[in-house]
């Protein structure tokens, strides 16, 4: 504990400042809306617990969790072994809780009638860091000889990290001449304005704006799969769908307010809060199994070797 913290902690009672119970959450900006909704509703029912939520990013969330600065980390990807080790070195074990399912939708202009389905290899060819593709016909000769206008989220978002990892094999690896924006609305406007545009963003946003752009089906080797809530939940829309996680430090899990909060998060009654944010939810038994995992304080990650097509329920149960 830092000396300043220690001194202040001792001085606090003297200053008579009551330290209310607090839960600190930080991490992925993708999971942020879910945690935010949960934090707000939980705070309403438990006014003496101060739940604060930030969105410094998945990586930032893990490093703060491992440093003991926060209690819960939001993550749009599975924790890495290196991060687990760093936490363990600080005496902090992590309890892994999948809470929702997200997908990335690849979209084109709604007037685009020449492409329905695209393979992962083709996506990679278009978006790779050293891509030489500049026209649709470079990818498939039967496509028009027009320039592809590319739109995508900026580097700060988990969506960016996820897309680049899934399509190009490495987080952050991407050609640099696309038009970036953190604002999905700007991306949609851009794609609407150019008949030969292509872009990607979260499924949640696409679901709300499905009238304005057209989503492509993705073929990862087993046929074309369209982005839909059902396909996301069953983990068949791959590689562009993924579970979203919340990681609780085992140390924090010993506190009653944190336990209440996790139970609140996974409660069936609050499922509609997740649906409100636009993400897909799993079946009730997944959440029941996840809650059991928390109550049993099972630490470590069950998703390190998670492959597309695997069952989330089995992973949580530890089968």
């Amino acid at each position, binding site marked *: 504990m830092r000396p300043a913290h220690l001194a202040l902690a001792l001085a606090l009672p003297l200053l008579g400042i009551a330290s209310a119970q607090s839960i600190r959450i930080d991490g992925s900006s993708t999971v942020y809306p879910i945690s935010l909704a949960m934090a707000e509703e939980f705070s309403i029912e438990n006014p003496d617990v101060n739940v604060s939520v930030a969105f*410094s*990013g*998945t990586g930032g969330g893990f490093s703060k969790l491992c440093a003991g600065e926060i209690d819960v980390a939001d993550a749009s990807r599975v924790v890495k072994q290196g991060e687990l080790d760093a936490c363990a070195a600080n005496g902090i074990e992590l309890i892994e809780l999948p809470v929702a399912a997200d997908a990335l939708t690849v979209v084109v202009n709604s007037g685009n009638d020449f492409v329905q389905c695209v393979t992962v290899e083709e996506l990679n060819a278009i978006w790779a860091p050293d891509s030489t593709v500049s026209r649709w016909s470079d990818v498939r000769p039967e496509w028009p000889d027009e320039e592809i206008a590319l739109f995508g989220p*900026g580097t700060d978002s988990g969506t960016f990290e996820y897309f680049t990892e899934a399509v190009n094999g490495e987080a*952050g*690896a991407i050609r*640099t001449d696309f038009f970036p924006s953190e604002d999905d609305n700007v991306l949609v406007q851009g794609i609407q304005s150019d008949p030969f545009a292509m872009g990607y963003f979260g499924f949640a946003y696409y679901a709300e704006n499905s009238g304005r752009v057209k989503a492509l089906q993705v073929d990862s080797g087993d046929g074309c799969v369209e982005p839909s809530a059902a396909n996301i939940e069953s983990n068949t829309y791959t590689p562009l769908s993924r579970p979203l996680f919340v990681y609780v430090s085992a140390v924090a899990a010993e506190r009653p307010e944190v336990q209440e909060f996790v139970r609140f998060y996974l409660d069936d009654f609050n499922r509609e809060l997740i649906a409100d944010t636009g993400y897909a939810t799993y079946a009730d038994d997944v959440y029941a199994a996840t809650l059991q995992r928390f109550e049993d304080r099972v630490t470590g990650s069950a998703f390190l070797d998670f492959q597309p097509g695997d069952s989330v329920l089995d992973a949580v149960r530890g089968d």
Partner: protein
Amino acid sequence: MTRAERTSDASLRLSPATRARERLVRGLLLFCAGLSVLTTFGVIAVLIGETAAFFADPAVTFREFFTSKRWTPLFADQSFGILPLLSGTFLVTAIALVVGVPLGLVSAVYLSEFAPAGRRRRVTSLLELLAGIPTVVLGYFALLFVTPLLQRVVPGLNLFNPLSAGLVMGFMILPTVSSISTDAMQAVPSSLRQAAYGLGATKVQLIFRVVLPAALSGIVASVVLAMSRAVGETMIVTLAAGQRPLFTLDPRETIATMTSFIVQAATGDQPAGSLASRSLYAVAATLFAITLLLNLVSQLVVRRYRERYE
């Protein structure tokens, strides 16, 4: 010794307790004054320390930093060329100066040569109010009012663009240019003015041939100072100009400035100590160096050239 010192300590016989108290008071006040020195030292130490660590990393070279046109610290393929941020800053600043300097100068002419005393006070208060508008409000105005307006007139104008930001920023620096230039113009001795009138000059001739040249040092200083403020301005550009590093001089393109990158990096996700987060300090150090230089130049201009007309 100041007059006060001589008078106070010399002939009075002070008790040891009183003398001790006086010394204590003096010490405390000295400490207060010293804090400003400490602050500057702190700023420089922090910036230099982290920037040194930044350049010590093998992935970064001075050459790349100053000549490369790619600033991608957050991509997998990191590239640290600051030129896009500099060009973005320059673009917005240039537009702001083009708007703010003429308007500010003309306001100063009005205030010092035309306005009666009561109106002068009111207009000065108005300009002070303008200067007091929080920049986040100006950024809101640029993004939500100016940009949609301009998009109807300028083809190909992006939602985030340096043109709107620069226009609004021009009004932000107008008071700076105006107040310093007004002071400079009013400092022109009346003997010069009367001499001009005596020679048959009109008011307009007086202004262009006597007052403006006489006040030139102050005017130049005000412009340099306004430039420094424009370079260091953060919220207007963060909200309205964009956060996409791009080396361009087209004011319709979305760009990033040094300051908007600093905000993006500080509110973003890089863990402390990583190369990407250290790049924040390197950019801040560059920004600090530029504004410091501009401030020193402005002070130098005033000091060097003011005496000529005394």
